[in-house]
């Protein structure tokens, strides 16, 4: 399954990328498993997405939980807690 991953703000800077369109392995079906897959890249990925770090995930521009299920061509965004206003 292919998804479009977007990163914003501090995470965009630390990951040194604002987007990618990876082909996910077949066992990656939920937000939780996607995050695990990203953590396996090690380095800043393992560090920033570690359990206990505060960040948010949105699927197709709606906030999503760890249990949310991914679909082909979903837009999945990973970003720090928001600080507007």
């Amino acid at each position, binding site marked *: 399954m292919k998804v479009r991953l977007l990163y914003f703000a501090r995470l965009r800077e630390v990951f040194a990328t604002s987007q990618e369109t990876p082909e996910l392995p077949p066992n990656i079906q939920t937000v939780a498993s996607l995050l695990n897959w990203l953590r396996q890249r090690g380095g800043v990925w393992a560090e920033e997405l570690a359990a206990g770090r505060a960040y948010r995930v949105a699927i197709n521009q709606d906030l999503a939980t760890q249990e949310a299920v991914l679909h082909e061509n979903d837009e999945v965004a990973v970003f720090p807690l928001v*600080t507007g206003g």
Partner: protein
Amino acid sequence: MKISVQAEPFDLNAEVSALYQANPKVGAVASFLGLVRDINEGQGVATLSLEHYPGMTEKALAQIVEDARRRWEVLDATLIHRVGTLHPSEPIVLVAVASSHRGDAFAACEFIMDFLKTRAPFWKKEATPEGERWVDARESDERAAARWQV
């Protein structure tokens, strides 16, 4: 209802009077203006850069205004959030709510600000004499949103 994410400044008179001039049922307009401060957590701020998530931002803001309308009598509302680079004392955000009575106008305006602060995908980066830094989210903002018990 007007929702805008923009780099340009806005005119408070024009925005607020648009909420009541065509509607003589409006008896109350509560509004909030958020500004760049020159000091944040003890460090001087020279400029503030605002990044957002285009597409999701507008969707999130529209949802927050819709939630407020479901809860209070909102005759009209305007929400403008600026992005890009801003200087101290420049307006960042305007939320203005028109209602028949002041209680609804105040509550809806404060509700929208509390959820904008915790749900709308904006991020602030400050430039200070010591360098750039991303602004940290505040626990107090989460508490402010939580008290509405949505």
